[in-house]
């Protein structure tokens, strides 16, 4: 029988969350590196270079890999012979660990959790509560798998009740292209098959707690239907040519994880949850001998990758930018941004639209400016700004036409693709949309040399800031003619992959 002390449990949870905020699992770093070496599309290769550099910088600087530091998800297996020396419930202890981790002054993490989700949507300020799944098992240990799941990838989760005779592979291949690139490929797909609707969803999430090991499976060969499915789905999805950040390319998924469970004769529930480039999870066991010890990886485990300024890269000064210059940019071009840009995301857009509808003047003149869809993490120590990667742009699609037409905004910077409504608005207004690499948040923050709140300070991370940047890397994703790299890129690479197969 072992006795778990309250403080040990809380500090283990807090330490694990700090640990995964800046250390990618090494198997994931290796997976991306391998894909990077193999990649033939320069734009996708650049994106993966940024992810790898960002990963190393985060590990070195102990700062979050991504500005979205996630919703805490815990799988907790409690041995039946464990007793607790604690005044709090296990759930309260886990949430206390979350609170400590996200408010740690040395590495403040972004509090992203809102209470009253269908109503006021009020920030709980400390990223609590966690989503916790319990299992009571044999033994005298407590085993905890803990993850910080990003919202962008979680939003792309899909659930279906298939007919027992339907093909799971077909469903996945049909569904993945509808998910866009907001889930930040390359990543993993977690599938839960069987059980009931909610069981399939939990299995899908739990499957993502395992390390990338599809190479071993490929070498030894599949031994059951689930293992066959992992390989079939991985190959079929990669043949779609979606590529890193949806730019088109050879690798869209690094691994496909599956967990299954017996199900009803009439049912075939399937849930698919993607995991983004900011894959963050670890696990620990407690047996009464103090808090968990997490061994930091060695920096030597990260590959030496440099981001090269290639022939198709140009430096742009945003303080002197003209519509004529923007018109010369082509989709797929890499651009290093310099000078001043504005920021704004969901809440700021909603405010601006309301003000425009009421005929009020906006607090910031957007004419000829660029706006970056971002909600940065608060800075620590001498930082100008915390990790500041892009957020999913499609959420701003419905506001884009009105903003462009009524303010004269020239460009937008965000994550992944735009929808048809936004693309048409961009074309009609000769504007441009640039894509920053999702998951490369710390790298981007290092390009920001100053940050100042210009409007809506009460919105916190959603306020309008002015950033001054130096060589911030972006890709032209929608040009003034309305061509979108997220359409042309995957189509082109799907064909290239099909021809070489």
């Amino acid at each position: 029988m072992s006795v778990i002390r309250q403080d040990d449990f809380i500090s283990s949870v807090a330490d694990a969350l700090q640990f995964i905020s800046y250390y990618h699992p090494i198997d994931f770093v290796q997976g991306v590196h391998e894909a990077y070496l193999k990649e033939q599309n320069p734009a996708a290769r650049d994106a993966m270079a940024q992810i790898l550099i960002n990963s190393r910088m985060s590990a070195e600087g102990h700062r979050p890999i991504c500005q979205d530091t996630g919703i805490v998800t815990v799988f907790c297996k409690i041995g039946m012979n464990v007793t607790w020396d604690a005044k709090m419930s296990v759930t309260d202890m886990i949430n206390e660990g979350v609170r400590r981790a996200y408010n740690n002054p040395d590495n403040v993490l972004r509090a992203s959790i809102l209470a009253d989700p269908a109503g006021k949507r009020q920030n709980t300020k400390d990223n609590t509560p966690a989503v916790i799944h319990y299992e009571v098992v044999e033994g005298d240990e407590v085993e905890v798998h803990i993850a910080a799941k990003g919202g962008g990838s979680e939003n792309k989760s899909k659930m279906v009740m298939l007919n027992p005779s339907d093909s799971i592979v077909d469903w996945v291949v049909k569904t993945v292209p509808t998910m866009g690139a907001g889930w930040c490929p390359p990543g993993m797909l977690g599938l839960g098959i069987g059980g009931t609707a909610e069981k399939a969803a939990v299995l899908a999430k739990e499957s993502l707690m395992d390390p990338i090991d599809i190479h071993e499976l490929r070498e030894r060969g599949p031994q059951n239907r689930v293992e066959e499915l992992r390989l079939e789905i991985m190959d079929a999805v990669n043949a779609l040519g979606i590529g890193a950040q949806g730019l088109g390319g050879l690798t869209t998924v690094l691994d496909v994880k599956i967990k299954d469970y017996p199900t009803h004769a009439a049912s075939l529930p399937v849930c698919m949850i993607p995991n983004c480039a900011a894959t963050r999870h670890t696990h620990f066991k407690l047996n009464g001998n103090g808090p968990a010890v997490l061994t930091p990886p060695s920096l030597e485990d990260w590959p030496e990758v440099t981001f090269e300024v290639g022939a198709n890269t140009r430096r742009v000064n945003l303080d002197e930018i003209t519509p004529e210059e923007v018109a010369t940019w082509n989709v797929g071009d890499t651009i290093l941004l310099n000078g001043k840009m504005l920021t704004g995301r969901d809440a700021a857009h909603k405010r601006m639209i309301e003000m425009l509808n009421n005929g009020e003047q906006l607090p910031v003149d957007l004419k000829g400016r660029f706006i970056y869809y971002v909600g940065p993490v608060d800075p620590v120590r001498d930082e100008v700004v915390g990790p500041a990667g892009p957020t999913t742009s499609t959420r701003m699609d419905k506001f884009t036409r009105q903003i462009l037409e009524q303010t004269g905004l020239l460009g937008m910077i965000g994550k992944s693709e735009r929808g048809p409504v936004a693309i048409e608005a961009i074309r009609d207004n000769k504007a441009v949309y640039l894509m920053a690499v999702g998951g490369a948040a710390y790298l981007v923050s290092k390009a920001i040399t100053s940050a100042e709140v210009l409007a809506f300070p009460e919105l916190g991370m959603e306020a309008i800031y002015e950033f001054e940047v130096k060589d911030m890397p972006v890709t032209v994703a929608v040009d003034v003619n309305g061509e979108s790299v997220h359409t042309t890129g995957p189509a082109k690479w799907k064909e290239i992959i099909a021809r070489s197969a």
Partner: protein
Amino acid sequence: MKKILTTPIKDEDLEDLKAGDIVYLTGQLVTCRDVAHRRLIELGRELPVDLVGGAIFHAGPIVREKDDGSYEMVSIGPTTSMRMEKFERHFIEETGVKLIVGKGGMGPETAAGCRENKAVHAVFPGGCAVVAATKVEAIEGAEWTDLGMPETLWINRVREFGPLIISIDTKGNNIFETNKARFNEKKGPILEKISSQLKFIK
């Protein structure tokens, strides 16, 4: 007057039936659902029961095995017919089945199969499984018992089993498709009204 079909069912028995009519079945009714359909159509295995002029029931019943080895029907309600949609047209053609009983509607493929081979699909109200069991006089056989209780082909002798509501007739008329079109017509104005009252974020 109560319309009663008796197996083996002949084409002329079904000729005058229209979608929406109510009938009863006397004779043989064989349970046959997901895996039985897959075995016949996908795997090409021969069905162990002759269904020419016969009736099948999309159902997974509860059956009690008695001490003498015979079976007693405890509860037998319909399962969702739509899962069999992709097999049923072929199934009708291959087996010569005349009456398909289940729950909910079926689609255009089954309707085509009914039209081509003079068969009908009927629904038995879902959730009335005990009533249904009282119409089963005896279980005369069980095939493919390896599939477990729900998927076994239970061969039932039934008397005035029903009410069965004809959902697809031999002309291929489909009551569920007709209703769907009607409901969709009603949807437009309602949707317009709701949309004007809802905004994105409150």
